[in-house]
């Protein structure tokens, strides 16, 4: 046994934390209690391993200690919990022996986090906290809320999971498509927070990669990962050397990460063999068409038209409808694009920056500079990213100048 140094211990904790929590939570039904018990076990580990050295099987050590703490805590419960559900921590649930790998229950944990009975605004932050071990204070800004509000929301969700006894199983085949879509949407929900909180896109990719490891035969799982990789491939090109926002049409394809785009397209090809199209495969395929500009120098708008029509038929999200409206300019012309934007409900788009940006662009093309200027300003008002806002304000100024 080597004398434990802090860096080694930290590495073990980072690697195992999510799996340990999932194991304890799946067997007790109580994520909160598992988090407390594991937290205490980690403190014990730090003390003990620093002096006595890191044990042969550190994970078994942590599980044993955490499980014992959970059982002790349950024995000390007060009056009110006599009315609550019984714990599922069973003396007979044994910790895997020294040397044996303990099972990875994180996939079950993902399905629980995205269960329909869980408040939808809690699902993504819950995954980030319990599967990735992120601190609430770090997650909260991504969801435009305070740490204490988010903490309460997560406690409510975890209590619901425990007390309503949400099932800890990977859903049966009949329910799987809908339940899986909820998981993937929650992961995507982390990605879209990148503007508010840098680093979220990477967390989304981590979760998407884990899902691809656990469910490699599910085409939508591969589709989501492909979508996130396509977006990541263009990340560097989305900012110039001064950190200013560069929109897609203005990006230099030479700056795109070809390796990531190829990896994404590889995943899409595997997914396509299943012949079960879905929202994320379609979204990724659209990004794949844009990515081909790197090779062909042009965009195949006809392919994009077909893909969006397929996407919007079953998954008419606001983002996709606006993106399609933008593409329509190149497919059918400015009037068609304007009509598509006009079909959206005012209250849905009022605070949605992409709507105003696309509208502004179309108004410019139609020669309506004063309206365009107003629309650029609306877009700037609604955007969370400082660099994007700067770009939008600059466009507003340009529209204003053209007016004169």
């Amino acid at each position, binding site marked *: 046994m080597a004398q434990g140094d802090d860096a080694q211990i930290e590495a073990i904790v980072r690697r195992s934390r999510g799996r340990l929590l999932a194991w304890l939570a799946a067997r007790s039904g109580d994520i909160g209690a598992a988090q407390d018990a594991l937290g205490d076990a980690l403190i014990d580990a730090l003390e003990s391993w620093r002096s006595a050295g890191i044990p042969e099987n550190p994970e078994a050590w942590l599980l044993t200690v955490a499980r014992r703490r959970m059982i002790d805590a349950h024995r000390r419960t007060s009056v009110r919990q006599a009315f609550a559900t019984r714990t599922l921590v069973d003396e007979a649930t044994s910790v895997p022996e020294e040397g044996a790998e303990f099972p990875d229950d994180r996939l079950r944990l993902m399905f629980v986090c995205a269960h329909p*009975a869980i408040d939808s605004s809690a699902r993504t932050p819950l995954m980030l906290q319990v599967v990735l071990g992120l601190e609430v204070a770090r997650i909260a800004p991504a969801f435009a809320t305070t740490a204490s509000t988010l903490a309460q929301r997560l406690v409510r969700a975890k209590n619901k999971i425990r007390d309503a006894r949400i099932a800890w199983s990977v859903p049966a085949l009949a329910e799987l498509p809908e339940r899986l879509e909820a998981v993937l949407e929650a992961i995507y929900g982390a990605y879209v927070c990148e503007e508010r909180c840098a680093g979220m896109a990477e967390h989304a990719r981590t979760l998407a990669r884990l899902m691809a490891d656990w469910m490699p035969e599910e085409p939508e799982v591969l589709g989501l990962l492909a979508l996130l990789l396509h977006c990541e491939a263009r990340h560097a090109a989305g900012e110039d050397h001064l950190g200013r926002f560069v929109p897609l049409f203005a990006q230099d394809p030479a700056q795109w990460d070809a390796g990531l785009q190829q990896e994404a397209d590889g995943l899409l090809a595997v997914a396509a063999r299943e012949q079960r199209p879905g929202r994320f495969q379609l979204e990724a395929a659209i990004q794949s068409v844009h990515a081909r500009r790197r090779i062909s120098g042009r965009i195949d708008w006809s392919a994009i038209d077909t893909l969006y029509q397929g996407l919007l038929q079953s998954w008419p999200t606001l983002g996709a409808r606006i993106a399609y409206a933008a593409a329509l300019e190149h497919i059918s012309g400015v009037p068609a694009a304007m009509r598509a934007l006009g079909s959206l409900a005012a209250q849905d788009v009022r605070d949605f920056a992409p709507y105003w940006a696309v509208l502004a662009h179309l108004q410019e093309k139609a020669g309506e500079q004063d309206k365009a200027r107003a629309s650029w300003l609306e877009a700037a008002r609604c955007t969370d990213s400082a660099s994007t806002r700067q770009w939008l304000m600059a466009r507003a100024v340009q529209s204003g100048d053209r007016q004169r």
Partner: protein
Amino acid sequence: MKYTLMIHETAEGFAQREDAAHQKAYWEGTMAYVEAIRAAGVLVTGAGLMPPDRATSVSWRDGKRHVQDGPFAESRHQLGGLFIIDVESLDVALEWAARFPRRPGLIVEVRPNLAAD
């Protein structure tokens, strides 16, 4: 004739279940009521319910099933428990409703059950 007594409370009432200053009185009051109603031979069945934040609602819209977190209606008063009793008249059922231990926001709805066939 069977009646269902639906016990509604507000958030303040539900909070008493957990709050150290009130919980003993809250639960002893409930238990005493259950004992009394049982002893009188009128109780068919009853159930205490977890608070509304543990509720999940299932509904149908456009032929699709919707499952969502929370009770069916966001109202101040939420169902906390129910009793099914078998008594001679509404007046007797109302007496039992009035005997339920008073707590913040208490409303007891009394409804006759459909006759079983």
